[in-house]
């Protein structure tokens, strides 16, 4: 019996390391007991309580709003940056510009948060905007760093795209702006969608930067979760986490199902073309 050799053990251990905590979290969300670590029988009461917890629900709503605004803004700015990086060819300071775009990827969150806080405070003193800290400041801060990720995604998609497509459109009489909207944009649409989702996720789970630039009354979901841990995790948080996981994994499942179907369709089409050709 060589079936459970070293490699299988390593594999199982690896999966366990990744998924045991998550499974535990889900299991304990159905715990009757108030104490997170003591099993007191099966119950769904924490899911019910969650629905009555206005503080948590409010934070969740804020987080989703911030994430949606962030994702949209990041896609707008990141797409422009990505296009500049991949289409303008060599211009003076291109390396510097490219480096600066991607700097937020490696910059510690603490520094981004702190520097933005300083900026917002001094701006408020100088021009009176933004007034206090809250939704606007969090969204701006998140856009600053999420935009960098979007720019990288868009840039890699654009450099994989055949530039002669744009040239062909121009050759057939389309002006540059038209070329962008009719040819380039539809072709990079998948990258824009995934950039939007990436920015949404990044914004949704950021706690460090949000802590710096949020104000009283504007607490995002991760901040609530994080601060509640200080007083011991309540099973409500477990329930919330389980729900979020359910939503995310359903989304991923549907997306991969659609992608797989598209792939199969494509393969069939290509086969048809070969036979018909």
């Amino acid at each position, binding site marked *: 019996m060589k079936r459970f050799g070293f490699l299988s053990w390593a594999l199982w251990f690896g999966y366990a390391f990744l998924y045991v905590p998550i499974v535990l979290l889900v299991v304990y969300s159905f715990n009757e007991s108030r104490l997170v670590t003591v099993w007191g029988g099966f119950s769904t009461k924490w899911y019910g309580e969650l629905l009555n917890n206005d503080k948590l629900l409010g934070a969740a709503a804020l987080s989703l709003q911030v994430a949606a605004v962030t994702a949209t803004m990041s896609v707008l700015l990141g797409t422009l940056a990505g296009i500049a990086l991949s289409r303008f060819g060599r211009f003076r300071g291109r390396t510097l510009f490219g480096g600066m775009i991607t700097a937020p990827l490696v910059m510690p969150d603490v520094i981004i948060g702190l520097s933005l806080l300083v900026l917002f405070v001094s701006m408020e003193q100088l021009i009176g905007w933004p007034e206090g800290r809250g939704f606007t400041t969090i969204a701006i801060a998140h856009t600053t760093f999420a935009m960098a990720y979007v720019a990288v995604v868009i840039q890699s998609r654009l450099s994989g795209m*055949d530039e*002669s*497509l744009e*040239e*062909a*459109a*121009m*050759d*057939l*009489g*389309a*002006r540059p702006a*038209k070329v962008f909207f009719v*040819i380039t944009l*539809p*072709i990079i649409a998948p990258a824009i969608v995934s950039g939007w989702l990436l920015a949404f996720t990044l914004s949704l789970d950021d706690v460090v930067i949000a802590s710096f630039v949020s104000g009283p009354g504007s607490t995002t979901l991760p901040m609530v979760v994080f601060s509640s841990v200080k007083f011991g995790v309540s099973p409500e948080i477990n329930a919330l986490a389980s729900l979020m996981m359910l939503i995310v994994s359903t989304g991923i499942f549907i997306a991969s199902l659609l992608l797989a179907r598209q792939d199969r369709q*494509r393969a069939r*089409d*290509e086969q*048809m*073309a*070969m036979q*018909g*050709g």
Partner: protein
Amino acid sequence: MASQPIRKPTRLEPWQDPGQTPYVRIDRVTKRFGDFVAVDEVSLSIHRGEFFALLGGSGSGKTTLLRMLAGFETPSDGKIYIDGVDMTGIPPYERPVNMMFQSYALFPHMTVEQNVAFGLKQDRVPKPEIRDRVAEMLNLVQLGQFAKRKPHQLSGGQRQRVALARSLVKRPKLLLLDEPLGALDRRLREQTQFELVNIQERLGITFIVVTHDQEEAMTMSSRIAVMNHGKIAQVGTPSEVYEYPNSRFVSEFIGSVNLFEGIVAEEQSDHVLIRSEEAGCDLYINHGVMVPPGTRVAVAIRPEKITLAKEAPAAADGRNLARGLVREIAYLGDMSIYLVQLAGGKTVRVTAPNVTRRTEMPITWEDEVYLSWQPFAGVVLTQ
């Protein structure tokens, strides 16, 4: 080089007529990328209705020249005139020119029909007219039943024809084609060559084709410009370029050739005599060349113009007659290639049609043979 030009020999030759104004005039155009000179002071005149080939290896500047005609690159120096209009500063979308791309550049998110209609839509042609002209074009390239398909649902040959239809639908006066047959397999290529020439003659459009394939250039075009290192090495009809190459580069690039180094011994208006140690004999050529005696030159002789024989030909005067040993024979069916090593060590390539059956082949490996050729066979190259 067994291929024959497929266009009719009765065609007009507008470039011979000094009264004709060229449709495309390229005037001392240079293109530099940094320190690299891609196109170096190229001047060309191309006439209405020509099928003009830009032939060269990679890095010869042929594609850059084509892209300057389309407007995707701007010349560093010099000017391009199309139909008498200076093209400087005119963007691609305002030029009376269409291009067929090497990658075909079909829009992947549009159907065949939408791809072909794209150019007409940009010109705000009325919808019913767009429909008619697209249908007409798709019929021309025999893709009527594929109108609703997306590019990835087509085979390579079909994609090529969609690209052609899309570039022709606006009825351009000048069509630029970048390696139009490059992505097709051999059988499809030959067939498509004929189709391209047919369409071009039917529509009367001026074609400028970039290709690295000399056979393709020879069969399709009315004239060829051979390019090398950004310069035009020679311009001429396929037979001019093949029979009278003006340099070693052209003679070696188009077809295969034997080059014999030698020194001009005698120079008259009706003949030259060249003493060649490499050939082991004197080379007699029946046309004059403007080079003084004593100059080092090379004589180019095409493999099919050399005759092999086991016996010395009668009436041989020792000129245009070399001796050697057959080293290699490649049997190609319709003809054979012989590699013959001369006494001086040089290997000469000879092709001969297989008029007899192979079993009766008189010449075989290690035979001692005589190589002879006519006085008109050689071309003297000074460059």
